[in-house]
């Protein structure tokens, strides 16, 4: 890599992209040069600051060639957005998560409370809201569009009261349809974290349940900045639209001398890339040669089309210390036949949408059960800021029915958290239950 000029490489790719000789991006709304730039930053072939400057240059150049005036102004704005350094990590506060499974019938709909999360700095209530205008139950499928405020069924801003007599207003964030909204009510100020009950607009909920206890460890990862390692990690971080395109990254890494063009791992990566679903729940058959793939990809793709996952919900209480610049809290796991999802909070905020950070700004969401099966997570509904974000991570393939424990592994570049808990389901097919320990 001694003679490789990362800036020149990216700019030449940018020139050929401008002239239509290269694709330059996976989707029309992606920033040009993003994938090769990320790859070169990851292996130390260029600084993140220079890569950002080059992307800004060619974003603006492309905008000036766009007949779409809206696109022009959008790209101008994106090219001009301030790109500060990623916020420093701060560990999330310990929290008390209480399962509820209580439905409050109101005049304008039914409010199902799934669990309540209390800490010294925040109070939130995980809910499902079914407005009265629905004559049927809506889809339980996750991944709805995130919306703030209230749904079609009317304002959803109840007041919370704790056992100290403190009453606070709440705001709803979540997503859904005309039939059903799912999300959380967040109190404008936290109520007492050890309160014995809360009232939601006068309806009292005893907070006597206990979340499933989790074991949390932090593991260091090998810090080798090789092209192969980068590409495998990149494949493990799909976005809303599916797995990342890796060919531009491969080209950049080969040019930089950190990857051999005939490295046998490239064929494996391409096979994995081809087989990965764009969205959790999109099923296809396992690719040929899956047995030859390295783990965790072999077990991940081996159960690709299975729809035999157990149905159930676990309320979890897990907050990690800082690892690799992140802190993660998990409050709920919901399993369905075709996959499972978790509700998480992350600090600082994950880069989402057009990325603003190259350095360690993303987590790969791996999971593994006690039978050696692996699962990969993809961000679903999501909201947040630079400092904090929360939402859903949806995993595929489905949980194996015989699995007895699961480890969720949010994975940074240099370390990962391993959050392990037993898979003890309540009545089969019912939500909101957990067997007593």
């Amino acid at each position: 890599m001694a003679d490789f000029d990362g800036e020149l490489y990216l700019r030449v790719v940018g020139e050929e992209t401008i002239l239509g000789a290269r694709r330059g991006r996976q989707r029309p709304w992606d920033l040009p040069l993003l994938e090769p730039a990320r790859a070169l930053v990851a292996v130390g072939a260029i600084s993140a600051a220079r890569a950002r400057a080059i992307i800004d240059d060619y974003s603006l150049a492309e905008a000036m060639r766009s007949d779409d005036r809206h696109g022009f102004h959008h790209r101008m704005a994106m090219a001009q957005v301030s790109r500060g350094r990623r916020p420093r990590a701060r560990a999330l506060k310990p929290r008390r998560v209480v399962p509820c499974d209580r439905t409050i019938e109101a005049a304008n709909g039914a409010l199902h409370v799934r669990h309540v999360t209390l800490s010294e700095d925040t109070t939130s209530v995980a809910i499902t809201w079914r407005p009265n205008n629905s004559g049927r139950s809506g889809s339980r499928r996750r991944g709805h569009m995130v919306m703030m405020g209230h749904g079609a069924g009317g304002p959803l801003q109840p007041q919370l009261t704790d056992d100290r007599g403190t009453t606070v207003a709440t705001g709803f964030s979540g997503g859904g349809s005309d039939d059903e909204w799912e999300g959380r009510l967040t109190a404008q100020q936290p109520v007492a974290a050890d309160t014995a009950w809360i009232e939601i607009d006068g309806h009292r909920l005893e907070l006597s349940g206990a979340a499933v206890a989790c074991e949390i460890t932090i593991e260091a990862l090998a810090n080798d900045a090789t092209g192969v390692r980068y590409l495998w990690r990149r494949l493990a971080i799909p976005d809303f639209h599916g797995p990342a395109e890796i060919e531009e990254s491969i080209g950049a890494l080969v040019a930089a001398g950190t990857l051999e063009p005939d490295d046998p791992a490239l064929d494996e990566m391409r096979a994995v890339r081809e087989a990965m679903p764009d969205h959790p729940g999109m099923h296809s058959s396992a690719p040929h040669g899956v047995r030859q793939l390295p783990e965790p990809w072999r077990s991940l793709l081996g159960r690709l089309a299975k729809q035999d996952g157990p149905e159930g919900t676990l309320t979890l209480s897990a907050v990690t210390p800082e690892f690799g610049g992140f802190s993660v809290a998990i409050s709920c796991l919901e399993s369905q036949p075709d996959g499972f999802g978790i509700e998480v909070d992350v600090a600082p905020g994950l880069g989402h949408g057009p990325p603003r950070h190259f350095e360690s700004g993303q987590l790969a969401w791996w999971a593994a059960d006690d039978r050696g099966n692996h699962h990969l997570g993809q961000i679903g509904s999501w909201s947040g800021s630079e400092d904090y974000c929360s939402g859903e991570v949806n995993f595929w393939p489905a949980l194996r029915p015989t699995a007895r424990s699961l480890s969720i592994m949010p994975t940074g570049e240099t370390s990962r958290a391993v959050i392990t808990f037993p898979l003890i389901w309540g009545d089969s097919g019912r939500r909101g239950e957990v067997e007593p320990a």
Partner: protein
Amino acid sequence: MNEWWRGLAPAQATIGCGGNSHRLRWEAGRIHALDHDDAESEQTLAALAGESCTCLDLIDAWDRHCEDIRVLVLGSRGPADILATQDDPAAQLGVARPQVVAGGGAGPRVSRARRVGTLSAMGRPGPSGWTSYAPGGGPLQPARSRKVQAENELVALVGLGGGLPDRLVATVAAAWQERLARSGRVPARSRAQLQAALHGRVFAVMRGWLGTSAPPLQLTMIGEKAAPKLISEDGHIRAELRFGWLLDVWAQGLAVVWGRFCLSANTDDGRMWTLTTVGPDVGPPSLIVVKLAD
């Protein structure tokens, strides 16, 4: 200062300025606001009235960006690289239209001294105050970041019609060619930007000359005194060209003459050119002499 503009024809654009159609003209390395006889006085009056003068603002912007390598990134690579039409290029400057605001307790001031009606494209007048940029016609707003201000100016300049953007590209290329010829040393970052700018324009010419299925281009930017060449090797077209090719060949419209790729172009008077060219077979170079008849 060498007469780097020799051979470049004048260029002129008409823009909206103060409700009128005004002319900006580039000729012999300089840009002129033809409809402003006393630019400094007009600008002072406009500033006092809280107004702006698009012609003079664009000339100021031209001056600020006449060595800005980003012009080479944003500007056209040739006929196949068409920029989107701006209904009113000067309106884009409206996003960045200078509006004089009070600063530091002082009264309204213009951003810098301006010569009367004309400005050397390579000139470097010193700053005499500061200016904030806000949407034209709107209320005064806080100063934009310098980066946003610079980009808005670039967009306005590169969006001008009448061949002015190509002359700005030539102006920037001339400035950097002179630096390379003088010392041969520029910062590595700038060198990468210059080579990429050269690559893009050579690449665009090659695609037009040999077709889009032509072998891949491998370009090396050589010193300003080294001999350029073009060879076909190992399934690649390997080009070794000076950065000055941008100004001497590409900006003059001499990149392909008689179906032959031009490696270099030399002139003493800007009217008769001796071109070193290579045919599509990428064989030995041949000379072509081009003369502008009286």
